[in-house]
């Protein structure tokens, strides 16, 4: 399957008074897997629907391989769409669902008729070819044995595969998926996640994927576009997002459930002052405003009380989760509700109300000056 | 104090029933009158009575249509009034023999006739004049009448010549048969008589109304709307509706009533109208009711009924100067029916339980003639066989 690049140029969209998308530009390379990541209501689905042609942008334009498709009807854009709730036709079998896009495109109304259809001139070969493609697709998705069932008789994961099959069967230029995993339970979600990755590797179709789960985005994508309030805040590879979120809001979103944030005055000489202590932070260079020091639970450790550079804390609660444990601590200097992730074994020696100290990994903590983005070295906000 | 519940047919008769009751209670303060909701026709009034009889919720007084009185008697809802008449000389009180006969079934008196009418011709004098006729002297034979009517239809502008209404019962069909000197059944009521020569002439004439006289095969309400709108030359109906007709027409055109043309010299006509009957079995109430129906059918009552409708009085005393004497002089449209009284005969009511349905059968067959779906002969034959099937087997 030949891949195609997608070009979204300055797309804006408002519904009534609300600007849902503001000047979104995004280029997806041929074969690339790009995820739109953002909180609920940020406009992800709207953008996807604009690309599919189900919605029209107020301004801006959509191109595939440098050819504008703004005036092309959805069915002719060569895009496939997997809906969050799959949108399978409940009255058709899995087979018929998968065949639907082919049948609607390649057969005339007469040829679609139940019995006679097949016997019309020219119809037989098309019917055979459709049948072949449906079965091939089904096999690829390992649902060959379920083809006679209706969606109501399929499990969530099976339905999801049928939906993917319906999208896949047309050999689309572009794959659009709107939270296809959101309705599955946790275990199945992770399983289907790797199925999607495998398919993408196998087929190599350019894919635009929507989710609001950062783990899903990280696990699947070549690049992730983080959208907040209708704007792209950051567009980068997952590792880069992990290392360098562009501002506190993005950082918070990407570090769910826990991001530790401490208020600090203006940093002086690469150090910020917290509770009387001066903590070195790589990131402060050039910052001239007070701001916030933020770090992930895994980028700090607990050390013996009194260790230089470590902040004295009180342990409040310990949450074990296998290898690791989350330790909830309050800073003796005031801030409460900080979380540190340490190895489970280490945690077993801790007791609530114990006094200990928190050592922040200065190489990985971020400093966000108030009212602005971090000072990122040479990185475009969106490619 | 006694309260009498009174039930009557035709809701628009309220215009005289209520004033009569008022006048009566003024004269008899010890009796009060209340009315039940009027039935839409004589037939339905009787049906309602039968249903109420079942539930023992009969009214005390009813004005029953001449044609359906027999049904009430058959169902045992009526008793003869001999317990009340006693020694009274009804003739002296202004009721003629002929009139009293209208209140009898099988020779027994069941009530006092209250209003009578005969079919008359309502003429749109303007249209008649346009067609070259004179509404005050319309033809007295059917041929000329139909010719004139045909001319009116030919005037154009959506006019129709005439409308001979069939109504909701068989009254007007009886009229046609009698117009040719016939009867519905023989005197002994053992055999159908309307299939004889008179009946045949009647149905043929009815067909000619449509083929030559410019009558449209439309329903009665539509035709009446046409007439009052000034689009119809002649309209045959009971004289009882003169008042309502005048009201609906206003001054849109000049309305005249005329006597019907006659098919044969000894033509008769059925008398429409109603009999005041007493349904209550309570002796005390019967006395009060008797007082009431005598009042209603007496000169005072009649002088209220006549001007408000067009009915003829059933009591000769009502014709004196104090009551209606001068009224007729001033209102010739009202007098037409009175002029026809010599020919008036009782409205024949069918033996057995199926009177209502016989009426429907007759009406339907006549409609078939009107619509041209049946030839008169065929329709008459069908009518005969169907009616025969509905008559009591024992006869």
């Amino acid at each position, binding site marked *: 399957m030949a891949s195609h690049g997608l070009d979204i140029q300055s797309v804006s969209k408002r519904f009534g008074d609300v600007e849902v998308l503001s000047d979104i530009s995004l280029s997806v390379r041929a074969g690339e897997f790009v995820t739109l990541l953002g909180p609920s209501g940020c406009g992800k689905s709207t953008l996807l*629907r604009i690309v*599919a*042609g*189900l919605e029209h942008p107020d301004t801006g334009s959509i191109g595939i391989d440098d050819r504008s498709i703004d005036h092309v*009807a*959805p*069915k002719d854009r060569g*895009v*496939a*769409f997997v*809906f*969050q*709730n799959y*949108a*399978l*036709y*409940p*009255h*058709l079998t899995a087979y018929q669902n998968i065949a*639907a*896009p082919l049948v*609607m*495109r390649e057969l005339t*109304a007469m040829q679609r008729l139940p019995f006679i259809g097949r016997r019309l001139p020219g119809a037989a070969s098309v019917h055979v070819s459709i049948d072949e493609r449906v079965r091939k697709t089904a096999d690829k998705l390992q649902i060959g044995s379920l083809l006679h069932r*209706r969606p*109501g008789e399929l499990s969530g994961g099976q339905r999801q595969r049928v939906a993917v099959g*319906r999208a896949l069967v047309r050999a689309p230029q572009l794959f659009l998926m709107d939270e296809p995993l959101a309705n599955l339970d946790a275990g199945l979600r992770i399983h289907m996640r790797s199925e999607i990755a495998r398919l993408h590797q196998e087929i190599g179709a350019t894919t635009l994927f929507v989710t609001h789960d950062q783990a899903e985005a990280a696990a699947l994508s070549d690049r992730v576009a983080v959208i907040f309030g209708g704007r792209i805040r950051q567009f980068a590879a997952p590792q880069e997002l992990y290392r360098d979120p562009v501002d506190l809001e993005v950082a918070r979103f990407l570090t769910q459930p826990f991001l530790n944030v401490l208020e600090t005055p203006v940093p002086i000489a690469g150090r910020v002052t917290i509770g009387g202590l001066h903590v070195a932070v790589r990131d402060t260079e050039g910052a001239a405003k007070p701001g916030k020091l933020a770090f992930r639970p895994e980028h700090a450790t607990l050390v013996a009380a009194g260790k230089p550079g470590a902040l004295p804390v009180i342990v409040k609660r310990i949450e074990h989760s296998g290898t690791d444990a989350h330790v909830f601590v309050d800073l003796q200097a005031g801030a409460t509700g900080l979380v540190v992730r340490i190895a489970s074994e280490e945690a077993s020696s801790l007791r609530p109300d114990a006094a200990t100290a928190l050592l922040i990994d200065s190489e990985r903590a971020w400093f966000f000056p108030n009212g602005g983005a971090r000072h990122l070295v040479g990185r475009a906000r969106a490619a | 104090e006694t309260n009498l519940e009174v039930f009557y047919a035709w809701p628009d008769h309220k215009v005289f029933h209520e004033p009569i009751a008022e006048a009566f209670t003024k004269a008899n303060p010890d009796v009060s009158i209340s009315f039940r909701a009027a039935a839409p026709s004589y*037939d*339905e009034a009787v*049906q309602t009575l*039968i*249903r109420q*009889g*079942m539930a023992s919720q009969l009214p005390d007084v009813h004005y029953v249509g001449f044609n359906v009185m027999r049904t009430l008697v058959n*169902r045992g809802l009526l008793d003869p009034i001999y317990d009340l008449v006693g020694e009274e000389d009804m003739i002296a009180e202004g009721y003629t023999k002929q009139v009293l006969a209208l209140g009898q079934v099988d020779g027994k008196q069941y009530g006092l006739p209250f209003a009578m009418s005969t079919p008359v011709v309502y003429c749109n004098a303007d249209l008649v004049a346009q067609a070259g006729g004179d509404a005050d002297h319309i033809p007295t034979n059917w041929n000329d009448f139909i010719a004139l009517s045909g001319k009116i239809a030919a005037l154009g502008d*959506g006019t*129709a010549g005439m409308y001979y209404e069939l109504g*909701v019962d068989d009254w007007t069909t009886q009229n046609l048969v009698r117009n040719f000197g016939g009867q519905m059944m023989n005197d002994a009521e053992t055999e159908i008589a309307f299939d004889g020569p008179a009946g045949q002439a009647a149905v043929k004439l009815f067909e000619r109304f449509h083929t030559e006289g410019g009558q*449209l*095969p*439309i*329903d009665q*309400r*539509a035709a009446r*709307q*046409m007439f009052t*709108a000034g*689009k119809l030359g002649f309209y045959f109906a009971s004289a009882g509706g003169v008042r309502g007709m005048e009201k609906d027409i206003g001054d849109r055109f000049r309305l005249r009533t005329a006597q019907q043309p006659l098919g044969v010299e000894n033509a008769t006509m059925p008398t429409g109208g109603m009999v005041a009957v007493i349904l209550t079995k309570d002796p005390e109430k019967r006395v009060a009711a008797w007082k009431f129906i005598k009042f209603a059918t007496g000169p005072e009552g009649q002088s209220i009924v006549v001007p408000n409708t067009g009915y003829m009085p059933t009591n000769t005393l009502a014709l004196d100067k104090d009551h209606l004497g001068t009224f007729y002089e001033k209102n010739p449209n009202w007098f037409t029916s009175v002029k026809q009284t010599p020919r008036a005969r009782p409205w024949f009511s069918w033996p057995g*339980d*199926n009177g*209502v*349905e016989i009426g429907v059968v007759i*009406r*339907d067959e006549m*409609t*078939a003639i009107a*619509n041209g*779906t049946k030839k008169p002969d065929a329709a008459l034959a069908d009518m005969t066989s169907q009616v025969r099937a509905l008559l009591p087997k024992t006869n």
Partner: protein
Amino acid sequence: MAILTENAGPSYFRPRSSAAARERSLAGTVLALPAALLLAALLLGPSGLVLVLSFSDASLGLSSVHFVGLSNYLRMLDDPGFAISIRNTALYVVIVVPLSILLGLGAALQIERRTALKGFYRTAYFLPVAATLVALATAWEVILHPTFGFANAVLSRVGVEPARFLSSPDSALYALAVIGVWQLIGFNMILFLAGLSTIPRELYEAAAIDGADRGLNRFLLVTWPMLAPVTLFVTVMTVIRAFSVFETVAVLTQGGPMKSTTVVLYTLYEEGFRYFRVGYASAIAVSFFAFVLLLSLVQTRASDRNRWSTR
């Protein structure tokens, strides 16, 4: 949708054996009892009695009642009046049911898709449902007046012979059918609108991408199958209502002219309440009900084969 899904049944009842279970079962009995009693007293009992009466010669107002076996039914077989009313009813149903369903569906489809004037259309089409027929019948009567009615005025302007509508035995039933359709469109439209509003938008979008983005294709792929349960409900209701046509007949034509508009229920009314032949009327009622029941069963069966669940 509440009334429109066939499988909106209760999940399952939990079998119990304890005191609490008995309490709940008792509560169920008590709560359902008034309805059950009234149902028996006001609907099923009387209907059953009708069945009994249909084997008798009962007549309203006469106290003697005799068992006459099947003779009422036999009489029905060769009663020309009854045959006519069957024919009229069938004709009426055959006209009214498909027309009012199709037009109701068409109206619903179009109204649903419009953004402007939606409320206006919905109200306009629903008005006849709320109409006091006795009053509106007079309006119809004058509009359809054989000589100076609005309908004929319009017809004559376009050069068509004036029709006698309600006055002619050839057209009266059709005129009543038109009024029947007029009355039922709105009812069906509302039900279809309710059904349409439950079709997920994504299905239409999926269809648009699959190549069925408008017209008949989309209708056949999504709308029609998704409306199947509603359509069944609407059809059953419409059939029952069309079979039960009574008021227009009673008010406008009284079965005439020449019995051309006597329908079964009107015959039932006439026989029962005008001619007082309760036994015969009951036999008509029983046959009528048997027929409606049969038809509904056939319909339900037929659409059972295409049933699917949305779960």
